[in-house]
């Protein structure tokens, strides 16, 4: 009952609702902005239907034969139209003759569609070799040494990094044996879906949810003090136990807010972009590699769906951490606008802190185990993510340690509060 | 002379006060009504915080709204709840309010010192108000109302938080002040005004019901107030039959003070009505409801 009333304080506040809708609209706009590439992306679907996602020797020869067949068909058509033959479908787009062909309207729209599909198939096909050689040359030990040199890490730190990357090296070998890297997926270099989904969208959802959560948690906890009803409220039967209710409500509301924001955004995303047939593709597939050529090496063999769900869960847990942090701050600072600002300062300090630790001190690694650093790098959750955060259980350790610490602080704050003179 | 003429105040569809007419001369006026009857609304109109929906309030013949700062310069006001800054000392706080009241700094410094002595806060003049008790805060409030030596002093529930000794001192202070100014005291604590108010104003059903001296008001129910003793067993029945004004246990019986228009019974003893009796009689049918404190 009390919890419901507390919950109502949040839900009925127009600013929370207004901001929520505004954030949602912004996310939808981000998705809308990307919709033009949807048609192109969908061309992958028929390829998968025909050959499956796994591009091992079998899959590849299947793809190749279908590609060659279609190219031959196309060349027959081209022969009759212009007398040209093409070595590759992409040659069709060479500027020398493409523009004149378009002006002369030599080909019908349907035919143009066909060549475009073919060109894409060709791109996917040719990418496989590149991926294979890239992964065969992948050397995690070398990558570790390179990073140690670039960051100028001291011996103790370097040793830890080496240990981690040695484990990663084993994982890379396993990944190659599993052929995880050879699964078809939306071409990273063309669409960069991983960055869009897990960086652009997730990152903005994280910040949006964080803003909402900090706002309403600080508001809720200090509601009585700001309304000057604290003396009444805290002397009732429920009394100071009310703070417990507030904590529970703040945490639940945080989950609800995050879930709704995340859920709606993702729902729209997956309605717009058709991922059918791709849910079970391993997240470490080489097709995800984007223009920076950095492969995604996940610590476990996750499918895209597993990865997505795990990331959603982690995101929600992070927001719980932020709600807890806000709660603790609010127990000591009775003005919600100062709480909001201090939260921002703490967040900034948390992100900056590792930069101030000497490069030979192990603290530089420990300070990376913070939710602030964690949420700045969503794209690389559960994966190799650079010298400082590539630990197999980095995400789990970070959130569990902070959850426990903050719960203890919250408990301590509450017990102090129950004895405080009001 | 402060004159309230035909003043009506609506909040949306709700009428808080209807065609009120009151005249204030020098002296203490007790504004007596239960919570939510429109006391605070009237006071806020007298202090220009609210604007009458119709009608005017005049001071010496001038509309107080048109007088603007010339009017506000003349008033001292203690709201039920007033904002103070926790980190200010009473001195700093009163100096801030003196600046608001347009008192020049030199005069203000001397005046603040003098007032803090009057309200017996001179020993904590430079301590932060964070640690003050409710009574101390209330005394700071009383001091600020008197800062500008106002012609009209308006006090909303001024004795809240004061202990009995402080109350007495405060009443004496008011009696002194009222010799050459208007003092309007809003309260629902009858004893606060009974002894010092020259006139009592009672508001009921959005209108002024009485505006008269205590004696005259009490006369309205002269001969209707009795005292008697009742057996314990009969108290319930007695209460439902008559309007009991007070009751107290005495030597195994209940001593009842009550009001009735019935013919007196022999065991009843006629007594002189007091203001509290009138208050209880007039407002006997008023049940406080949630919407009543909308204007607090």
């Amino acid at each position: 009952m009390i919890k419901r009333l507390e919950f109502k304080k949040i839900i009925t506040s127009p600013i929370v609702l207004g901001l929520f809708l505004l954030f949602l609209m912004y996310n939808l706009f981000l998705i809308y902005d990307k919709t033009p590439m949807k048609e192109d992306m969908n061309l992958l679907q028929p390829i998968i239907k025909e050959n499956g996602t796994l591009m091992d020797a079998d899959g590849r020869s299947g793809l190749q034969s279908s590609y060659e067949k279609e190219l031959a068909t196309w060349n027959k058509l081209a022969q009759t139209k212009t007398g040209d033959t093409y070595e590759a479908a992409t040659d069709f787009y060479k500027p020398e003759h493409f523009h004149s062909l378009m002006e002369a309207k030599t080909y019908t729209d349907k035919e143009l569609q066909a060549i475009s599909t073919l060109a894409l198939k060709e791109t996917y096909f040719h990418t496989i070799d590149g991926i294979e050689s890239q992964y065969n040359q992948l050397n995690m030990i070398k990558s570790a040494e390179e990073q140690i040199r670039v960051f100028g890490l001291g011996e103790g730190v370097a040793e830890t990094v080496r240990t981690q990357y040695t484990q990663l090296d084993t994982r890379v070998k396993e990944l190659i044996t599993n052929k995880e890297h050879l699964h078809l997926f939306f071409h990273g270099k063309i669409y960069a879906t991983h960055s869009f989904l897990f960086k652009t969208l997730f990152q903005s959802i994280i910040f949006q949810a964080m803003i909402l959560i900090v706002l309403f948690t600080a508001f809720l906890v200090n509601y009585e003090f700001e309304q000057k009803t604290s003396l009444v409220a805290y002397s009732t039967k429920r009394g100071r136990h009310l703070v417990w209710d507030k904590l529970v409500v703040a945490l639940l509301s945080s989950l609800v807010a995050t879930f709704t924001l995340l859920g709606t955004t993702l729902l729209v995303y997956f309605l717009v972009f058709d991922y059918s047939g791709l849910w079970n593709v391993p997240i470490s597939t080489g097709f995800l590699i984007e223009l920076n050529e950095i492969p995604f090496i996940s610590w476990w063999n996750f499918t895209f769906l597993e990865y997505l769900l795990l990331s959603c869960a982690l995101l929600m847990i992070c927001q719980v951490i932020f709600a807890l942090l806000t709660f603790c701050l609010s127990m000591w600072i009775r003005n919600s606008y100062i709480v909001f600002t201090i939260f921002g300062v703490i967040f900034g300090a948390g992100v900056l802190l590792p930069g101030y630790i000497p490069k030979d001190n192990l603290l530089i690694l420990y300070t990376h185990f913070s939710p602030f650093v964690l949420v700045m790098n969503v794209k690389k959750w559960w994966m190799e993510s650079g010298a400082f955060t590539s630990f197999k259980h980095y995400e789990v350790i970070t959130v569990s340690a902070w959850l426990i610490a903050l719960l203890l602080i919250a408990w301590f704050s509450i017990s102090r509060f129950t004895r405080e003179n009001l | 002379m402060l004159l309230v003429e035909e003043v009506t105040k609506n909040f949306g569809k709700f009428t808080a006060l209807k065609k009120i007419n009151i005249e204030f001369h020098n002296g203490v006026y007790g504004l007596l009504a239960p919570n939510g009857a429109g006391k605070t609304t009237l006071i806020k109109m007298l202090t220009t915080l609210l604007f009458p929906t119709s009608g005017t309030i005049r001071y010496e013949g001038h509309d107080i709204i048109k007088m603007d700062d010339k009017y506000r310069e003349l008033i001292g006001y203690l709201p039920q709840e007033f904002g103070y800054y926790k980190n200010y000392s009473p001195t700093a706080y009163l100096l801030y309010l003196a600046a608001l009241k347009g008192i020049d700094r030199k005069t203000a410094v001397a005046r603040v010192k003098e007032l803090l002595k009057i309200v017996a806060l001179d020993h904590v003049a430079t301590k932060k108000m964070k640690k003050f008790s409710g009574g101390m805060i209330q005394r700071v409030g009383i001091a600020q109302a008197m800062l500008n030596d106002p012609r009209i002093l308006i006090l909303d529930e001024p004795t809240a938080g004061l202990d009995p000794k402080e109350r007495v001192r405060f009443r004496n202070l008011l009696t002194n002040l009222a010799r050459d100014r208007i003092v309007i005291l809003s309260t629902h604590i009858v004893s606060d005004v009974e002894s010092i108010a020259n006139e009592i104003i009672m508001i009921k059903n959005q209108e002024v019901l009485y505006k008269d001296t205590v004696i005259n008001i009490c006369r309205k129910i002269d001969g209707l107030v009795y005292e008697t003793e009742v057996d314990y067993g009969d108290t319930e029945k007695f209460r439902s039959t008559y309007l009991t004004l007070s009751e107290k246990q005495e030597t195994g019986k209940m001593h009842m003070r009550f009001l009735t228009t019935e013919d007196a019974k022999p065991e009843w003893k006629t007594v002189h009505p007091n203001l509290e009796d009138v208050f209880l009689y007039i407002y006997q049918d008023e049940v406080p409801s949630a919407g009543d404190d909308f204007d607090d």
Partner: protein
Amino acid sequence: MRLLFEELKKLFTVKTIILLLLVSIIIYQMFIVFDFKHFPNGRPVLDEFLATQKMLEDYGESMDEDEFEDFKSIYDQRINEATQYLQSQDDMVAAGLDSYTKFKSIDLENEKLAALHNKVYHEDYVDVFWEIPAREDMIERYEHPERYIQQYGQINEKQKARIEELMKNGAATAIFSYQVFENYNTLIKNVAILIFLSIMLVILPLYIGDRRNHAVFLQYTSKVGRTLFTKKLLAGLIASFIVITVQLVCFFFLYKGNDISMFLPLTLHSIYNAFISWYDITFLQYILLTVVSIYLIGLALVLVTACISSIAPNYMTSVGLHVPLAFILFGVGTTYLVQNLTTLYLFKYLLPVLLAAILSLSFILFWWKYKREKWKDIT
């Protein structure tokens, strides 16, 4: 006057000042310090900057034909120096790299040669080898002023006319440095964001505090009465003026460390800069323009923040309303009103029109609120 001081005191409490300091430190560390520490950022950018500085010392504000010949002769000299260096290195000579020309046309596919190449640039950091490509690039730009026009891509007649006019008036020989300009542009945007954030922090409690703890009852019934509303605004304006000024003074004090004072009197229009303004302005004038713009936006921001403070029922709503405001102001706002001011890419009078619009809108908003406040029932 006394009242104004009292209200200012309430805005600048110890708490607020500590908050401001903390926020400033964080923002500086996250977004500003980098552009101080790494200016000029990397090589050969650094070498280009040094060469430009020398150019300025030697030739003054512009470089005529004779001076260009001199500039080229320095380039030749550097090539000789590079050759001498190579000849002094046994491993280079052994690999047949005994002149700069040979070194330059090195086959980078050859691992051994690539290692030597890498040694010169990234291990020994031989300055002259970094300086040569920098100077080469500068010579090329001088010799091909038409590229200055080409970099603007598709332009309309007016824009074209403006560029041609500039070229006629000496842009082709004027000396400037695009690094200096871009560095300033990046810095001032982030500084502006910090300034606007500071203003929000200071002004946010302006009305809401007294309203929420019922101090208004006493304030509005005092002699000053509801005119306190404007007095508070004035205090807010003074406070933000102080905030802006202190922030800018701190920033320019640090900026002095970038050692670019010789660029201040120069015109922005040079083949060595990638920015064209609709107006003939020097770098110093441009800086002043950004400063004026920041003050004016600050003024508008105070009005809007003050309005929010006087309307919002609680701190949560107040902070919440600032979120979209900050989003717009820090993003779009600084991009068009603090960065690349008067750029040829945009409408010529965009800056004055936008500023005037923003200011008048915020004035109207505040005026409306002020009118309402005057006759509001204080319940």
